[in-house]
């Protein structure tokens, strides 16, 4: 952990937007200075990365997350040395192997054996090193019987296995992985993950680009979140992933909000109907905040059973909504309510203290309100939360609609919203293999 394996400082990457404009001028500048991009006007370029700086400690596993088009793959190509930054510097210490596309450069007409040799040499192996690791490559790919057949006869799974096997046996100091694991079947993916874990144990530096946030939280030491080419978050995987998920939910929110600013203004002035159940119809759900603030919700935290703030939960966990409220003057008519909504605005659940017969006595100054949802029984998805303090007649003090969200992640891709606690049983002529015991994903890692 002494010197970092990758150091990026103020990296900027611009691409030409119009590939064939002003070609002669570009040719001239290319010949004279070698800088095709620097001479182009700003409207002719597209900035893929803007001022990105980070360090990857030697032996650590680093993930880059972000939406499509956020510059993740561009960054990976820069680290791999396939393209160079327009500005800024990027230094990588050690041999790099990039799994950007498995089996890139395989020639379909020649045998797997020769392709392995050529591919390995392209990735920088010498002939001697190849001889040493050739058997390991073929065994890893499980292709011993087919290695002398032309690659064009391989199935796509075999092709990928061979490509991965070669890339991983180049014995890199720094391994770059771009979403390649998303394409294999489960057994292959698991094998690859095992191999990657082995490399981690051996102290190799790994840089991931992935959409699999579960993987990020499970395997990575450090995360960089890119948003439209800029660094949006950096650091502890759990925190950054939570921020990212909050942002993704917020993106929908902003979309909804921008759809009708007028409607939002209207909602602000009109006394809102208080019970979240009333807003159950999809489409009627617009995030916002309104109320007189006589009782103010100052802070909202979503925490797990260990009181740690989280935004990702797995089914069965306990989610506690913790509200810090403040009443400047004593109030004796108050109700606290919550509502859960699916991403499409469907009301999942709503309740309040009045419905459950809690009688308000008095609230003054600082207070904390906690609602624990034990054994979260929801299917995978993003859920928005309504939080409200209002009078018993519905007049709002502070109504937070859809400003908070959490995500449920699950291995089981069941559908709907609600997941009742359930079990299957079979008797008579029905014979089924039980699922492999694998449990839910461990998100809290502790």
């Amino acid at each position: 952990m002494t010197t970092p394996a990758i150091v990026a400082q103020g990296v900027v990457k611009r691409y030409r937007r119009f590939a064939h404009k002003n070609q002669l001028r570009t040719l001239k500048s290319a010949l004279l200075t070698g800088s095709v991009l620097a001479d182009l006007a700003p409207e002719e370029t597209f900035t893929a990365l803007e001022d990105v700086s980070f360090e990857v400690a030697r032996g650590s596993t680093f993930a880059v997350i972000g939406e499509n088009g956020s510059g993740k793959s561009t960054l990976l190509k820069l680290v791999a040395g396939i393209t160079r930054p327009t500005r800024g510097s990027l230094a990588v210490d050690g041999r790099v192997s990039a799994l950007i596309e498995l089996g890139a450069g395989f020639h379909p007409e020649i045998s797997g054996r020769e392709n392995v040799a050529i591919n390995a040499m392209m990735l920088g192996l010498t002939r001697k090193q190849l001889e040493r690791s050739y058997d390991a490559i073929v065994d890893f790919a499980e292709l011993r019987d087919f290695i002398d057949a032309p690659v064009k006869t391989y199935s796509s799974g075999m092709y990928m296995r061979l490509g991965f096997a070669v890339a991983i046996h180049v014995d890199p100091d720094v391994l770059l992985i771009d979403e390649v694991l998303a394409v294999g079947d489960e057994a292959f993916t698991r094998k690859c993950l095992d191999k990657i874990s082995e490399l981690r144990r051996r102290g190799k530096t790994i840089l991931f680009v992935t959409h699999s946030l579960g993987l990020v939280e499970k395997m990575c030491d450090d995360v960089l979140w890119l948003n439209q080419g800029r660094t949006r978050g950096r650091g502890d995987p759990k925190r950054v992933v939570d921020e990212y998920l909050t942002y993704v939910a917020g993106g929908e929110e902003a979309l909804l909000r921008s759809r009708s600013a007028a409607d939002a203004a209207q909602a602000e002035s009109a006394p809102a109907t208080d019970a979240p159940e009333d807003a159950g119809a999809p489409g009627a759900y617009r995030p916002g905040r309104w109320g007189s603030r006589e009782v103010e919700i100052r802070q909202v935290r979503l925490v797990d059973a260990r009181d740690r703030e989280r935004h990702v939960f797995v089914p069965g966990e306990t989610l506690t909504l913790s509200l810090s409220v403040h009443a400047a003057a004593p109030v004796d008519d108050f109700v606290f309510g919550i509502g859960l909504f699916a991403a499409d605005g469907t009301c999942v659940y709503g309740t309040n203290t009045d419905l459950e017969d809690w009688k308000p006595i008095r609230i003054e100054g600082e207070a904390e309100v906690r609602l624990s949802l034990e054994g979260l029984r929801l299917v995978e998805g993003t859920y928005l939360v309504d939080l409200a303090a209002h009078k018993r007649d519905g007049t709002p003090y502070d109504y937070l609609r859809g400003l908070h969200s959490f995500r449920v992640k699950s291995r089981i891709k069941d559908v709907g919203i609600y997941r009742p606690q359930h079990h299957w049983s079979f008797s008579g002529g029905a014979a089924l293999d039980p699922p492999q015991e694998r449990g839910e994903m461990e998100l809290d890692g502790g």
Partner: protein
Amino acid sequence: MIAAIRSLLRHRPLVESLVSRELKARYRGSVLGFLWSFVNPLLLLLTYTLVFTVILPNRQPDIQPFFLFLFCGILPWTWFQASLSESSGVLIASANLIKKVLFPAEVLPSVCVLANLAHFLLGLPILLLFLAWQGKLAWTAVLLPLPILVQLVLTLGLSLFLSALTVHFRDIQNILSHALHLWFFATPVIYSYAAIAEGTPLRRALRLNPMTHVIVTYQQMLFHGNVDHWRGLFLALLVGVLAFAAGAFLFDRLRDTLAEEV
């Protein structure tokens, strides 16, 4: 230029494997397989022989039998022409590789040139056989490595130049086939350089073409059995070295843009 040579030497095992892959893959699946390397020049020769002995008979006394004279020029010319037309498209065809793998791209045009050199060398014994059969084979044939080297340097340089430039200007691929056609007729392959009178504009124009000197040297070494074109060959070497330097320079300049433009 030194850097380009060093890079190619460092990646020699890769270049070797790619050349052998190129040779194997080309005829994979065909009935004759490797024999095509011999059959191809024979068929080419047959065509030209038909044209120039039956349709447009050439009766110049110093280049008889004409089909053999043709053979001496066409074989190296085919190497030159195929190398250039293949390497102009090679980077685009390997876009996948250039975009996804950190990979010394100059290897690709070099492989085009070397694979075609291999075809040339495979065709050469057939030519020598025919020469021996016609009693034309002379000791000068042992000097062949010299024009081959000159042609190699020249072709490599032009290949590097064209391959990198074609990525930015795809038009080159279209122009090139016509340019090579013209270049073929501007090189004394199907006619004799010696027959064009000294001092004429045509002769002067031909002298500017480095391939003229290379081809004439081949013809002298193989067909005529006496070599006196050293000055021309040396000039061609100079042009070749210049072309190589220019090609390596351009390739290096455009290297960073290749992954973005292919």
